[in-house]
């Protein structure tokens, strides 16, 4: 098959789905309840592109394919095409997007069943896939940016999906605006590149970019990175992601875990040649990533909302990915993106399944006459013992938990270990001091990850049910359309790690993902490491260390939470004191933004400052001029006394003036 046609189909099918699902029911009310049609179409337009991508992937011969649709805009030096690029990186990303996306679409047909906005949901979701595909397939920065903003839009629409609750909409606004702050930097990076190179096409940028002056490069990469922090929820722009959990759970899985949030990584990987040329900024990237990772991990420990835990976990894992990027190991980032997509997708979907079932519990409690106004179906403190009611969800959640915790032989183990190893190696071989710091933080974070994930699993699924009347009111397993995707993803969480076996095995020759992506995304240190730059023994040791930590911490948490349940949190709180408080208050980031940035900008500057200023000063001057004319008029008219002799006096004064001017002035 013609690959151009395939690319067109891959891109346009989801768009088609979005348009049909969106417009039809919008105008024809009867169509809104046709869930079968809508769900089938919505899923098909993602699954088919997945199949097509798989075909492309299978037949890909290593030479990048460029597909030009049509000219977007031409002005001066700028010549911009709707141009798409199929290469290794975009293929992997496309597979993830359509694959995980397809699964989540399928899941959604069950999860959203009965929702009045079913059609909207699928329209948005399809639109999201379209935008995401634009992002990953773009062949120039503006098209990438189109997708970039497009996914932001869909994220906005989906976070605020249940708009009748204003807090959801507020979260949506927050997500969009914080993302826009990142976009600002992205735009500036584009302007800078264009002003230097006169083009924004990848081939030009990657070929000529590295020759730019160091200053320009540093700025460019820094700006790109700031752009990435917005989308990929890094310090300081991560604050929107936890709030984004307000959206339906499949959204959290797809957008806020598997795909969209990784686009920042994708951007850096795409621009890897520029990034690698900006050494200083790489340090910034790595350090910011490390700090984000550990910060989010500590916060995750304190969260009680099952989705919030996963959200902070996502932030933390994204931090990992940036650590990798910061040490130049882009392929590892992508690898982690891949594995993360599976296990985090699985976790989110599992939490969705749990929430679904807890909502069911809530309804039953309500039916029995309980006061459910305080009942939160997402609060882990009211859960417990769900494993017995919903085995599929439980098991898949468990597998994914193990995977993310870095328990050996599951996907997370391989990718995370590779990241830690690369950081170590960068310090060991490359001699960059910051790499040690990054590595250290990474190891601690790995321990924390194992802890909070174990906490999450055990609080939710084991122990006694903690909701009222647990004897009579039972939770239920979700439908097949939801459990099948769970199993698919759990399977992925188990096996995808083998795509990137570490260098200790067969000298890295079995590290498929590294070979597939090629040296382009490996960085200067990574390339020779195939042959083993670090002594094998040391590497084995490192692997052992991280495995040990993961398993150890996991088991510790298991025993702690199995024994004391929720109460262990209080022990933790007591042990860490103020630190724990800081964690549970998310390091006061939200307070800072709400009270300092937003309040001072909106309330202080805009509402109390500029708006009155505009009315009183700027407009006041205008009205003042008019008023002055009126006042002047009022004063002048008092000269018009009505007494004829005064008029005569004025006349004579005029005479004096005129004679004076004429005789003596001229």
């Amino acid at each position: 098959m013609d690959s151009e046609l395939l690319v067109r189909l891959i891109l346009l099918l989801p768009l088609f789905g979005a348009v049909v699902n969106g417009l039809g029911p919008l105008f024809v009310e009867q169509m809104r309840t046709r869930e079968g049609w809508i769900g089938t179409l919505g899923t098909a337009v993602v699954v088919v592109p997945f199949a097509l991508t798989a075909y492309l992937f299978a037949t890909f011969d290593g030479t990048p394919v460029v597909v030009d649709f049509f000219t977007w805009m031409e002005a001066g030096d700028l010549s911009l095409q709707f141009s798409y690029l199929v290469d290794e990186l975009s293929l992997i990303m496309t597979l993830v997007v359509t694959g995980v996306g397809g699964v989540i679409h399928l899941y959604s047909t069950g999860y959203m069943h009965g929702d009045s906005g079913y059609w909207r949901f699928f329209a948005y979701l399809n639109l999201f896939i379209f935008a995401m595909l634009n992002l990953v397939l773009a062949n120039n920065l503006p098209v990438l940016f189109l997708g970039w903003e497009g996914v932001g839009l869909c994220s906005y629409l989906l976070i605020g999906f249940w708009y009748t609750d204003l807090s959801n909409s507020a979260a949506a606004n927050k997500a969009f605006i914080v993302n826009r702050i990142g976009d600002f930097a992205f735009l500036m990076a584009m302007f800078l590149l264009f002003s230097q190179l006169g083009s924004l096409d990848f081939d030009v940028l990657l070929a000529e970019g590295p020759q730019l002056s160091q200053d320009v490069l540093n700025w460019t990469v820094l700006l790109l990175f700031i752009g990435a922090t917005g989308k990929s929820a890094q310090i300081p722009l991560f604050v929107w992601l936890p709030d984004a959990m307000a959206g339906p759970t499949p959204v959290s899985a797809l957008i806020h875990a598997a795909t969209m949030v990784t686009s920042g990584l994708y951007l850096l990987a795409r621009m890897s040649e520029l990034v690698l040329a900006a050494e200083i900024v790489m340090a910034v990237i790595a350090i910011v990533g490390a700090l984000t990772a550990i910060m989010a991990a500590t916060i995750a420990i304190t969260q009680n909302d099952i989705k919030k835990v996963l959200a902070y976990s996502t932030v933390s894992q994204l931090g990992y990915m940036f650590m990798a990027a910061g040490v130049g190991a882009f392929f590892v980032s992508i690898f982690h993106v891949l594995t993360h997509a599976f296990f985090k997708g699985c976790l989110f979907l599992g939490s969705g399944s749990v929430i679904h079932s807890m909502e069911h519990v809530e309804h039953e409690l309500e039916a029995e006459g309980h006061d459910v106004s305080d009942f939160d179906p997402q609060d882990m403190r009211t859960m417990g013992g769900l494993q017995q009611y919903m085995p599929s969800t439980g098991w898949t959640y468990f597998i994914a938990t193990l995977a993310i915790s870095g328990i050996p032989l599951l996907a997370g183990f391989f990718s995370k270990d590779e990241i830690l190893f690369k950081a170590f190696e960068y310090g060991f071989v490359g001699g960059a001091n910051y790499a040690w710091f990054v590595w250290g933080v990474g190891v601690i974070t790995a321990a924390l990850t194992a802890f909070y994930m174990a906490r999450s699993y055990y609080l939710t699924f084991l122990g006694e049910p903690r909701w009222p009347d647990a004897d009579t009111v039972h939770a239920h397993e979700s439908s097949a359309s939801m459990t099948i995707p769970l199993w698919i993803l759990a399977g992925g969480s188990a096996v995808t790690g083998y795509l990137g076996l570490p260098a200790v095995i067969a000298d890295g020759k079995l590290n498929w993902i590294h070979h597939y992506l090629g040296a382009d995304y490996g960085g200067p240190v990574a390339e020779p490491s195939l042959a083993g730059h670090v002594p094998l023994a040391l590497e084995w040791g490192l692997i052992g260390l991280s495995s040990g930590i993961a398993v150890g911490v996991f088991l510790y948490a298991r025993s702690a939470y199995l024994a004391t349940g929720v109460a262990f949190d209080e022990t933790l709180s007591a042990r860490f004191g103020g630190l724990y408080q800081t964690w549970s208050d998310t390091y006061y980031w939200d307070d800072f933004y709400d009270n300092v940035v937003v309040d001072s900008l909106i309330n202080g500057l805009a509402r109390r400052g500029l708006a009155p200023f505009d009315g009183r000063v700027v407009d006041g001057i205008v009205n003042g001029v008019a008023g002055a004319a009126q006042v002047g008029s009022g004063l002048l008219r008092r000269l018009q006394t009505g007494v004829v002799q005064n008029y005569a006096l004025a006349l004579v004064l005029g005479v004096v003036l005129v004679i004076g001017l004429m005789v003596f002035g001229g």
Partner: protein
Amino acid sequence: MFFLLATLAVAAAVGMLVSRSPVASALWLVLNLFCVAGLYLTLNASFIGVIQILVYAGAIMVLFLFVIMLLNLSALPQLEDIQWTQVAAFAVGVVILAQLLYVTALGLDVPIEPVSAETAAEVGDARLLGKELFTRYALHVEVAAILLLAATVGAVMLAQRRFD
């Protein structure tokens, strides 16, 4: 002769200015007009001098007096205090006088009757003026006639008592 008449004219004018009774003012003005008529005669402008007495002093001033009597006007009560407008008026009046004197008195010390006494007398003569009036100034005379007619009609319109 000139200085006598001039002094008298100025004195009469000042008298008009300062008297509070309108009748007295009118009579001072009549005196002034007579003096000026005399000055015309010193300038050999006999025709104008005669007209001055006939029309101005004779007709116009009588009209004034007539109206004053008709309306039975007496002196207006004196103003208690001096207003700034009056001060200003006085100052402006002085400035005007200064300006006028400056322009008229400077550099024009040519004697009257530069050509000859005969010409001067002829220029002021009624015959010459009459001829001019009915040739070169015929149009103006006609329009002046209309002006007087209009003034008459207007005065009647304004002052007459209508039957309504």
